[in-house]
């Protein structure tokens, strides 16, 4: 029975900015072996971190690790070559009864204790460094943090927990007027960095009323160091051949399409895009990829249901006059972006140049991140997720090419 249980293990994959190809390799391997990508820590048997997380992201991973129900196992993969052997080793760990028993014994029966102990350590560390806003952040590790209160000043919130007997030490949510002017509870909910179909390392701290976002702020948690393997985005890529660059561009565009299609809940199309992506990663001929992408693009353009369900979800509002360089006068919807990526991927697969290494591309990532809070404010979570996926922010470009943001 244990052996069977491990044959269908669920893996929570955490991507560190810069290790996107490692994550894709993991996803391809999961699909091949019949394992499943977990949607949340409670769903997972295995925590697999792709890349070397920076301090904050590592702390988040600790918090997530504490939430895995167990039997559990975890590992970090840094190279695409290491994926298969790491997964095999994790399966053995899950089957190791003695080890799992030991692990279970050391864990507290009370939920959140491991996590909150970690939070206390974190918060004192942050106080020592004098960065006040980080505190709210450390509360937001778990993708499913229990209702935090609306108080932005987390120190005061901590004090309140000690003075008043609150359930589980959590202050009650306070009210606020919603968009219809009715009083409604306000929740501080961070989206990311550990969420399925979400840009690596991105954290969007949202204030929610019901499932509507009333305000938001976005930032990227960096990696410990720049990736220098296949996922590397920096200097090592300069000498890359144009063919290799084209392949990478196809991978990038089709991965972006996978995320949007998966969030739109169209599993057969997302699966198709995923297979094209995985073929591109494993070095299939660009001509074949172009044909497959073209076919997928036609299917997506034809789908009235997709057009209807994505209607009005906009990643770039319309402008009367052209804004900065690239942006257009028309509003760009998520569906437009999806079709754009597929068309672009077909063109690149047939030999058109890719703009990935250009400074404009990196600048666009920064401006997209800056525009994100404005775009998702006032939308519900589902639309916001589609908008984030539609922006397809390459967080590696932000983490390694810092540009002053205000």
């Amino acid at each position: 029975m244990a052996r069977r249980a491990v044959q269908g293990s669920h893996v929570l994959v955490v991507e560190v900015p810069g290790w996107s190809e490692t994550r894709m390799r993991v996803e391809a391997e999961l699909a091949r072996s019949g394992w499943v990508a977990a949607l949340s820590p409670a769903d997972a048997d295995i925590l697999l971190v792709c890349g070397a997380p920076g301090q904050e992201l590592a702390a988040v991973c600790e918090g997530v690790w504490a939430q895995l129900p167990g039997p559990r196992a975890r590992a970090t993969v840094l190279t695409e070559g290491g994926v298969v052997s790491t997964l095999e080793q994790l399966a053995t760990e899950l089957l190791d009864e003695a080890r799992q028993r030991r692990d279970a014994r050391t864990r507290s029966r009370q939920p959140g204790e491991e996590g909150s102990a970690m939070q206390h350590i974190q918060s004192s560390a942050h106080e020592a460094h004098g960065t006040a806003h980080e505190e709210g952040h450390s509360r937001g590790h778990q993708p499913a943090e229990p209702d935090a209160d609306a108080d932005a000043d987390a120190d005061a919130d901590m004090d309140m927990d000690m003075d008043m007997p609150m359930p589980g030490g959590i202050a009650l949510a306070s009210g606020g007027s919603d968009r219809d002017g009715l009083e409604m509870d306000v929740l501080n909910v961070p989206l990311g960095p550990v969420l399925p179909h979400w840009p690596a390392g991105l954290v969007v701290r949202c204030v929610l009323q019901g499932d509507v976002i009333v305000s938001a702020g976005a930032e990227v948690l960096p990696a410990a160091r720049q990736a220098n393997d296949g996922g590397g985005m920096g200097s090592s890529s300069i000498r890359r051949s144009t063919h290799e660059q084209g392949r990478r561009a196809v991978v990038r565009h089709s991965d972006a399409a996978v995320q949007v299609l998966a969030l739109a809940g169209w599993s057969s199309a997302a699966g198709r895009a995923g297979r094209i992506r995985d073929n591109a990663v494993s070095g299939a001929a660009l001509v074949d990829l172009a044909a497959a992408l073209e076919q997928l693009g036609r299917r997506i353009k034809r789908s009235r249901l997709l057009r209807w369900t994505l209607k009005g979800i906009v990643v770039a509002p319309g402008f009367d006059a052209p804004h900065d360089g690239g942006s257009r006068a028309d509003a760009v919807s998520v569906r437009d972006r999806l079709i754009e990526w597929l068309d672009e991927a077909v063109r690149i697969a047939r030999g058109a140049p890719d703009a990935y290494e250009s400074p404009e591309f990196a600048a666009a990532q920064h401006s997209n991140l800056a525009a994100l809070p404005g775009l998702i404010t006032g939308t519900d979570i589902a639309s916001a997720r589609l908008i984030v996926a539609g922006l397809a922010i390459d967080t590696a470009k932000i983490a390694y090419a810092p540009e002053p943001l205000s």
Partner: protein
Amino acid sequence: MTGIAAVNPIWVLLAPIALGLVALAGAALNGIVVAHAQGRSVQSGMASPILEIARLMRQRRRTTVAADVLLWRIGCAGLVVVALLKTAVIPVGAWVLADIPVGVVWFNALDVMVWAVVWLIGWGANSAHSLAGGYRFLAQAVSYELPLMFALVTPVVAAHSLRVSDVVDAQRELWFVVWMPVAFLVFCMSVVAFSSWGPFATAAGADIAGGILTEVSGVDRLLILAGRYALLTTGAAFAVALFLGGGAGPLLPDWLWTILKTLLLLATFIVVSHRIPIVRPDRLAEVAWVVGLPIVLLQTLFVSVVVAVKG
């Protein structure tokens, strides 16, 4: 075909097994569809529900900080209970466990129980994503429930009875699906919706980390997943009784026809669901109220007029 009669109550013990087997067949088919999409063998897909059961039986259940544990656990177990209670009024061939005079109302009352159960799953975990899942389900339920009720009423009007066996008997000459196709379609869509399945699975969507499923693990998760398949199965079986003539069919025994038709409908639900995008509750509300409700009302009106004219 002979009339439907209630069987000895001892058969109640068999009902969960039969329901479980049909639901498992549905889960296996879903596994096959997923495996096919990922380029794996049919066998590996067929085994996937068994692997998942083994995995979840081995996994520890967990709680969250300040969870409303009692209500949460009630919610987790509730879907399976609702599905089992529904089997009481579903005729298999000529047999039914309880041929109560208000069988259709019984089914509908249990549909409404699903509102409460899913909301409790979302509420109990004290987690933002679960809660958002609960909100989404209620928003969706507001859209599907009224069309569902009128879809249920339509065969009842034609059969002059709320008793499920009377509805099946009334289809001896002509299956209701033939002259009330809109009601049949609306009913099928509602079944998929109250099972949080396929295009109506936003309550457990990947965009909110699994929504109502975000915080559940181990046996609790198993019960919810099994409950969703069980609801889908009972919904399909009830559609067979209401619209597809129950056990009517040539050659084979009538109980086998019921099961075959149920499996076929269940398979349709599962396969079609993979091929269409998810329908967000806010989009659904517009269509359900502006288009869905009026056309199902017209369907009911049409059937009522036909029944009145024929006397």
